[in-house]
């Protein structure tokens, strides 16, 4: 993956980015985008995150800007953009792939990092307090099914989730 540096050096371009994204398992075909803006018109956070601009930036190879930006983390994952895109670009999955790339480099919002830590500890994204256990008993609900915490943790290790979580951007 070679980086082409244009001169004068305004910004670094990674012309391979669109292929890199397309080859990630979640897919997302930035090069089919015709910039019609259908995605952004239905986006609930369009004021901050404009999917068609994200896709354009992928086409331009503006990797550093994309990976460092807050906007991609504001995606609500509602998939309205992917549902409506007439070109089957799948902007939502492009954004997922970008977030995965950012996380690889240690960029993860604190809230998500905390959820990840909980997951590693308990096998769940949220801790179930004893208050809830008591509430269930009072309601006559059966005990919450046991989680195999160790098995879950092994999945997190095998998929490098734990390592990713521990990475912090310099």
């Amino acid at each position, binding site marked *: 993956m070679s980086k082409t540096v244009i001169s004068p050096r305004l910004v670094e371009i990674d012309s391979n980015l669109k292929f890199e994204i397309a080859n990630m398992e979640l897919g997302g075909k930035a090069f089919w985008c015709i910039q019609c803006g259908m995605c952004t018109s239905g986006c609930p956070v369009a004021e901050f995150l404009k999917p068609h601009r994200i896709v354009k930036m992928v086409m331009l190879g503006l990797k550093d800007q994309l990976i460092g930006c807050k906007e991609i983390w504001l995606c*609500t994952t509602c998939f309205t953009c*992917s*549902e409506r895109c007439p070109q089957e670009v799948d902007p939502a999955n492009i954004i997922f792939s970008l977030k*995965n790339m950012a996380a690889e480099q240690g960029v993860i919002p604190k809230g998500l990092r905390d959820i990840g830590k909980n997951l590693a500890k308990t096998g769940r*994204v949220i*801790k179930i307090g004893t208050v809830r256990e008591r509430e269930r008993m009072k309601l006559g609900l059966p005990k919450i099914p046991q989680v195999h915490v160790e098995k879950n943790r092994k*999945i997190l290790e095998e998929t490098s989730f734990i390592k990713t979580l521990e990475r912090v951007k310099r």
Partner: protein
Amino acid sequence: MKYAYYLGCWIPARVNQYDLSTRVVAKKLGIELVDLEGAGCCGTVLVRSVNFKTNLVMSARILALAKNMGLDLLVLCNGCYESLMEAENLVKTNENLREQVNTILKSTDNLVYEGDEKIKHLIQVLYDDIGLERLRDEIKRPLDGLRVAVHYGCHILRPSSRLKFDNAENPKILDELVEITGAKSIYWPLKLWCCGSPMLAVDRNLSLSIAGMKLKSAKEAGADCIVTICPSCQIQFDTLQPEISKVTGEQYNMPVLLYPQLLGLALGFTPEEVGLHLNKISAESLLKLQSKA
């Protein structure tokens, strides 16, 4: 009618009334629920944002556990539904990923997953397996005149090409299920919008202000209540409604019911039996509308 029953995380941690009302309704309709043991989180979009493969393997593990029980899998949470459906698609269509998933599952549980577990959301079971006709026959105390703002939640609808639930731009399943109770599903402009929940952990104020816009839209359309089928949406609209008011400066007083709570009331169960007392925003006002028959 027997299903493997998977609760996920948010329901036992925050929304026990969803579990309670589902069990009450299921028993009445002859649906047998067998708890799925050993299953943790499905991974959800929250984990997918950090590492998509982690999400995939976690979901595939749950599908494998259910398949070993020899039962179709019934879920209550849209987040779980989306995650499991996406995993099912990937395992079936991507050989390379299937191998990676199974290498890991073999090492953790000695499990194998090759696809073909049937995943059903509660309301698909009610709509497809029980059917509107049977439900109509069971209604004891119709909720005539109740104006309901139906909220599907994103992760049951989109992307429709992969989730295969209903027409994502004009869904009908939940509307019809709501109207079977005698209530009316009203038009409200932001009906199909996201509740904002998935980025609550990233930008709390923005997330809550999106939920606020939806509550306002429902209120302005004259809704008596919102009906949801997802624990995250329920938490957002109901549990966090007071906090939303603090962010937006507006009062909504909007009761939010989970669908099996609404159905349970119409089937003749008491508010207590469907766990209405566990909802944050009081739904007392709605009960006055109900006929005593």
